């Protein structure tokens, strides 16, 4: 069975994660409960005419994928696979609002067209004239991991040699206010948001676009090998450790073989216990990393997590800003990621040098 390598990454997030090495310019914003993406210079990638009416998610997807392809030194790919929880939600809101406010009259199609979930993947394909396989996964917090699994399966089965896979989600005003109303996002407050030591419901919200070029060959640009991943719709809190042990066993590994664990802490007191249990027990002696204080929580935030893991393996360093304990290892060769959202859509991703 062929192996899968992460050969290029492109990450747009609430931090400056493009044209940088590894979070050296990152700043932890503790004042806001919603984080917004740091915009690249779009005109370097998309003509101003094309980008004028283009949804943010599409623009960000195109730019992030361009960075990933450039790093991997490829000009086209065999397949494009996108994960997105909400698609281009701003256009969805725009079209919905127009329908309701104008009683179904005076509508134009642009917002409707862009609201379709597979628009990002389609526009990337259109930009590079890629006629290959093009899938979009839309299943909450495992939208991105579904794409990774699909891509890995194609590379293993010899169906493709080079695949662009990414996760993209954007902030929309209306959905943000609804999420606040429903208590998914933390209440507005004056005291700083701490993420790890929160005692309240809700998370810090964010947005981002993060793409990867996966290939069957190791090359100079290689970050890491994507060893295995697993998706589970539901798990009880007390089932997670066993699940991880079984998952590692399938890959002939034990907990002690893991050089660092990347956990999806998002500040929600109700569900962060899923991570906390692991951090305090099974992985108490493992270097621990968290990242959502930098990018915020969104359906495809775990793509930022994989970007973080890939960077650690490639640079063999862990920036202080993302360490949640002080344990160190002489080398970071094998990294495990665990993510879930609201106790659902669990994913385990294993990468190695």
């Amino acid at each position, binding site marked *: 069975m062929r192996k899968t390598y992460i050969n290029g990454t492109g990450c747009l997030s609430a931090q400056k994660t493009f044209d940088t090495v590894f979070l050296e310019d990152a700043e932890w914003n503790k004042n806001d409960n919603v984080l917004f993406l740091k915009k690249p210079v779009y005109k370097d990638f998309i003509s101003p005419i094309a980008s004028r009416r283009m949804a943010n998610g599409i623009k960000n997807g195109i730019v992030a994928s361009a960075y990933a392809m450039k790093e991997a030194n490829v000009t086209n790919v065999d397949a494009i696979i996108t994960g997105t929880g909400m698609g281009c939600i701003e256009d969805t809101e725009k079209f*919905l*609002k127009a329908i309701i406010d104008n009683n179904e009259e005076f509508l134009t199609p642009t917002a409707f067209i862009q609201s379709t979930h*597979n628009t990002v993947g389609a526009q990337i394909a259109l930009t590079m004239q890629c*006629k290959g*396989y093009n899938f979009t996964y*839309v299943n909450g917090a495992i939208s991105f991991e579904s794409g990774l699994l699909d891509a890995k*399966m194609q590379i293993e089965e010899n169906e493709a040699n080079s695949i662009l896979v990414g996760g993209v989600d954007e902030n929309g005003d209306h959905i943000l206010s609804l999420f606040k109303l429903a208590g998914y996002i933390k209440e507005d407050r004056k005291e700083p948001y701490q993420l790890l030591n929160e005692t309240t419901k809700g998370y810090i919200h964010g947005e981002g676009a993060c793409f990867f070029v996966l290939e069957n060959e190791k090359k100079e640009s290689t970050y890491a090998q994507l060893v295995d991943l697993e998706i589970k719709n539901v798990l009880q809190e007390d089932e997670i450790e066993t699940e991880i042990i079984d998952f590692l066993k399938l890959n002939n590994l034990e907990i002690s073989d893991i050089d660092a664990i990347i956990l999806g802490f998002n500040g929600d007191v109700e569900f962060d216990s899923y991570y906390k249990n692991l951090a305090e027990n099974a992985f108490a002696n493992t270097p621990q990393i968290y990242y959502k204080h930098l990018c915020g929580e969104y*359906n495809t935030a775990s793509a930022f997590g994989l970007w973080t893991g890939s960077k650690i393996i490639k640079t063999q360093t862990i920036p202080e800003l993302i360490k949640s304990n002080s344990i160190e290892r002489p080398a970071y060769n094998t990294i495990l990621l665990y993510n879930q959202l609201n106790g659902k859509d669990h994913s385990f991703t294993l990468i190695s040098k």
Partner: protein
Amino acid sequence: MVKGVAITGMGIISSIGNSVEENYISLINNKAAITTIENISTVHANSIKVGEIKKTNAELIAQLQLDKESNFSRTALLGLIAVKEAVANAGITSINEYKTGLISATTVGGMDMTEKYYYDYFENPEVRKYIISHNCGDVAQKIASEIGLKGMVTTISTACSSAANAIMLGARLIKTGKLDRVIVGGTDALAKFTINGFKTLMILSDGYNKPFDDERKGLNLGEASAFLVLESDEIVKKENKKVLARVSGYGNANDAFHQTASSENGDGAYLAMKKAFNVAALDPSEIDYINVHGTATPNNDLSEGRAILRIYYEKSVPDFSSTKPFTGHTLAAAAAIEAVYSILAIQNNVVFPSLNFETPMQEFNLTPQTTLKHKNIEHVLSNSFGFGGNCSTLIFSKNK
């Protein structure tokens, strides 16, 4: 040819029936169900016709015996009905006995609730339970939870080819041994959002859709859900399961031409069909029936027709029909309901009629089968194309 992945169960709800049997009876009796919309209040009610399931959400909730306080979107309700029928049809009693997954497909997700309560959410705490239902993944989550499935659950959204891609992924997951059993399909409810979206694109017919007709004026939207159960040959053998048919070929390609229009020569469609033939190791001449995408928009039928002619270059095109005059275009569910119809065609050795056809298109010589035709059916090809140039082809074959 390859053996393909075994289909051991199917379930469906559409405007022409609430079960596989009801759908079949409608198909062989020319009983289309394109009507005036009743469940959604829209200013377009008098100018469009739709393939609407004539059951209210309350009726669906009662049929499913769900808690009245549940927060199911209509899309999830329809999905659950079809999944339950498929699971029962496959004779599954213990859902987690094997490594089982669920791959759903939807384009609207819980949009019906979002558009209903868009502003009400701020005033009325009681309806806030639907906020989370907007998310497309919520549909699959709810279905999995109702049938007690624990495992790989995901959702595909590639516009009108979504369910074809769910079936394709499911088949690949079985082939690679990642799963032993997988429930695959799609579901979409009618919503003001899609009605108005397609209206602005000016591809809705003001009458009844007429696929591959020179006078075709656009599509009728519909709502539906259908799911298949795919199982590994190990399970089929061990449990001596009845195999309804097999998924023998599949292919997805991108037209990379335009966000909402298909290329003139149907490049994406051609490539998708080519890939499917390669996977199935079948020659195009071995196909007995093509269930075309055939939405009856001027653009789709021209592009699809040209792609089919490219595949059948200088050879005769098999019998083909579009079943969308029966059900309307059911978006993410379309490929799933048409998969059920393809399997029914194989099981009953029939070609379903393409209704409303009168005048052949000027651009080429392609005439759909307009009456029910009985003949041996070994292989059916089913096309589904969506926005974003997303083109998918599935091939279903008789179990040998």
